């Protein structure tokens, strides 16, 4: 039932009613609203009950194993949530005087330093609000750099076919043409092909390493040499940073600019689709272009930077300071784990991924890159199962829900047919992993003996398999009183 269907005209949640006589005499009659917005008229209890009920119709990390590849669904510490929800933080106006809020600025300043340390890059700006905005910013800085060098013929951005969709989309948002480069059968990009691809039009390349295939590119130094020699710059998509935290630094691999997904690597809650934070880190030569504001420490005081401090900055990305409170959460997470803890994250995220991969291989599943190490994630393909029993990766994904596991990422990377991208993260126990492995093995058994069971799954969720095609064909994006009531 929709909240609107609980609505009764004239009802008000009176505990939230703001007392006071209105004086609207100065507002022109013609400028006032004449219609009543379709907001529900419900009591406070109805609201609490409705949304509590809705929440129970979700899987989350707090309720289920959630091995969604590329998303790093690790435990979001409840302590961080509490610390971030303190009234002093919540009530701080973004334009309030910095003198009154030195603690908060200090935290951001230190976070800049931490991220610089982690990435091996000297410059950091915290303002991008998610990975994809970080990418936009990074590519915009690459462009600004070439422009500053009057190097204006560089119109192409190289992106692997296996890259996340945000990479090509971000490149296009910056006005670049995307040139795709395929992945070799070993999971690496083809260095020889890359060598042929680059040229005077090459603005740069966008890579993740380990890649979205879960493979660490051993020849990354060669790649960086090729791009740099061609006059391009290297962008690092930091979505997979969890795999190498404290192990390898993108700056040391030869990258010039990158973003980090704090909502992945640094455990800020995904919130059903956000918010995130996508700070960027850069090598020295890109520092002048970092977006504002950043935090500097001068004359014993922390303050925001402005255009005056950074005349070459690509500018501002949001009205205020990005997702400030998410930055705070990431800071707290880093403080909790500390330098050693962060490194152990990579160890155990990698351990868990390789363990599942190995056990699935032993059970006869087909890994996309059987001869390679998994980074914190890896790809398996159900091409065989699809062909033999007509059971698709999507069917298996849905059936996993019945076993109490959220499904891994399906059909991504696009280059591998009928695939799962599986990322368990470091916070899941061996027991959870074993349960997941067992479930997959059972489902494969079911696929052989009772494929209908799998193809009509899920059977235990609050709804049965939903019709996505109908959703597009009979587009219904808002509730209308007359139609549905």
């Amino acid at each position: 039932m929709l909240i609107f269907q609980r609505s009764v005209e004239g009802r008000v949640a009176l505990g939230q009613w703001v007392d006071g006589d209105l004086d609207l005499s100065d507002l022109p009659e013609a400028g006032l609203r004449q219609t009543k917005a379709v907001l529900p008229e419900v009591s406070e209890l109805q609201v609490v009950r409705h949304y509590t009920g809705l929440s129970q119709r979700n899987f989350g990390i707090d309720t289920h194993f959630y091995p969604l590849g590329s998303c790093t669904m690790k435990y979001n510490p409840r302590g961080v949530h509490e610390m971030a929800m303190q009234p002093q933080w919540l009530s701080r106006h973004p334009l309030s005087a910095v003198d009154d809020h030195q603690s908060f600025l200090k935290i951001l300043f230190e976070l800049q330093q931490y991220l610089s340390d982690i990435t091996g890059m000297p410059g950091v700006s915290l303002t991008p609000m998610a990975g994809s905005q970080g990418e936009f910013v990074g590519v915009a800085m690459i462009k600004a750099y070439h422009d500053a060098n009057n190097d204006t013929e560089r119109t192409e951005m190289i992106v692997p076919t296996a890259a996340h969709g945000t990479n090509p989309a971000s490149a296009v948002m910056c006005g670049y043409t995307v040139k795709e480069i395929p992945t070799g059968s070993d999971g690496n990009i083809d260095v020889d092909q890359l060598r042929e691809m680059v040229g005077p039009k090459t603005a740069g390349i966008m890579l993740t390493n380990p890649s979205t295939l879960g493979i660490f590119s051993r020849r990354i130094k060669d790649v960086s040499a090729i791009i740099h020699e061609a006059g391009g710059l290297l962008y690092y998509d930091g979505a997979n940073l969890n795999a190498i935290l404290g192990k390898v630094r993108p700056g040391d691999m030869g990258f010039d600019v990158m973003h980090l997904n704090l909502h992945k690597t640094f455990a800020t809650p995904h919130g059903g689709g956000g918010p995130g934070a996508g700070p960027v880190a850069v090598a020295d030569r890109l520092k002048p272009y970092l977006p504002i504001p950043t935090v500097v420490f001068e004359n014993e005081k922390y303050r925001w930077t402005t255009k005056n401090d950074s005349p070459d900055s690509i500018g501002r990305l949001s009205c205020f300071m990005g997702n400030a409170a998410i930055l705070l959460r990431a800071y707290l997470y880093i403080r909790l784990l500390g330098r050693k803890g962060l490194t152990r994250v990579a160890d155990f995220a990698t351990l868990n991924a390789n363990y599942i991969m190995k056990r699935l291989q032993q059970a006869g599943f087909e890994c996309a890159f059987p001869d390679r190490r998994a980074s914190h994630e890896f790809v398996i393909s159900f091409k065989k199962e699809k062909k033999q029993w007509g059971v698709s990766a999507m069917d298996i994904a849905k059936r996993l829900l019945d076993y109490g596991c959220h499904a891994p990422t399906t059909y991504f990377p696009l280059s591998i047919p009928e695939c799962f991208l599986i990322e368990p993260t470091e916070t899941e126990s061996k027991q959870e992993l074993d349960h997941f492995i067992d479930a997959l093995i059972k489902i494969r058994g079911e696929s052989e003996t009772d494929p209908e069971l799998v193809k009509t799954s899920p059977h235990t969720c609050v709804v049965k398999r939903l019709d996505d095609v109908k959703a597009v064909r009979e587009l219904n994006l808002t509730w209308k009183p007359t139609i549905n009531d």
Partner: protein
Amino acid sequence: MPFIPHTNEELKQMLTDMGETHVAALFDEIPADLLNDRLEAIPEGVSEMRLKRLLTEQLADEKMPLCFIGAGAYEHHIPSAVWQVASRGEFLTAYTPYQAEASQGTLQLLYEYQTMMASLMGMDVSNASLYEGASALAEAILMAVRVHKGQRKRVIIPRSLHPYYWDTVKTIVSEQKIECVPCDFDPQAGVTDLGALSQLSDENLAAVVIPQPNFFGCLEPVDEMTDWAHQKNALAIACVNPMAMALLKEPGQWGSADGEIDREANTRLEIGADIACGEGQPLGVPLNSGGPYFGFLTCRQKFVRQMPGRLIGQTTDLDGCVGYTLTLQAREQHIRRSKATSNICTNQGLLVTAATIYMSLMGPVGLRQVAGVSHTQTKKLVDRLIEIDGVERVFDRPFFHECVLRLPRDVDEVLRGMSLDGIQAGLSLKDYFPELGDCLLVCVTETKTDQDLDVFVDGFCRWLG
């Protein structure tokens, strides 16, 4: 090291099962010279207990003055139910609802949000959120350009728009070579000068941005601007405070009420803005130093395929029962890649969760009351302040719950004084509009009592005196 559940026994067992002896071996594909096991700038880890203690000490330094700053972020009361429910693990720790059957909670909520927000704006459809207001405006402009198939790349943006929105828009849209043309405001009225607007070239014009209220709190001539845009076959993009829309005419109704005739085309002008966007923060989101907030974006049905961001649609399941799912994903980067309507992926789902709960608690009447009381309290304060010698309103147009005042003394000095009394008296406009260097932008919401206004006025008299 927190949050890793493995015991040493288990670690050994897992390695054995894998035929390995050390975790380090799992990293053996990484060239040795790249391995680097040090994080020098990062302190040692601490327990939750210690970190809370450290933080408590830092928090003691953070001031919590009475806040009279608005300027794009507004302190409204947030019912406790909003964040207590939004903080439930099932909302907080879910990902984007890619597996619809395991995400009906979030999906239905977003569908409800889309309904509420579209209706609040008087528009047909709403997406499920963008990052925040300023970048949402940038996306709206990119969308307008797409609607014109990239053939028109000029956009008129009033100078009365929030300066940081201006900056943000420029950063984002200029990468695609879109030209942002400023339109001046009338220095008397504080709103877009319609004369100046009519002088601007309409060549290549994709859209006109119409803020309501504008940065100064003043009410723009939204009807005239909408009509003008439509006359030029450009899109009218409303950039509004959603709280204000509970009280003021919604974008869907903007434009010539009696369907003015477009003389050139000899057709009736369409009523209503084409896109309405803005900052969702006033709807249940705490100030929080500027974020996370959420941008909203609504539009006419016919433009929906040019919309960036996620959309949730109603559908049915195998049994014919109603359910909800992500839809029109072919617009998005994860399917369409370089041809997507935007690169946005992670959005601001949790904030929309809070806003949906907030709007449900307030309802249409309650929300209007919040807007009305906020405005009434602002008017009370302004009326009293302009009685003080030398304090005057700068603009003569009606305002909504935010107002520019000229002071007879250095604004920053007055602000410093008021701050000693525990009051953030507003925003000094010096850094934003040199011509308004002696001006203060002051905002009152429903959270402020008459006594608070007394304290404000007392302090003001003292620091001005």
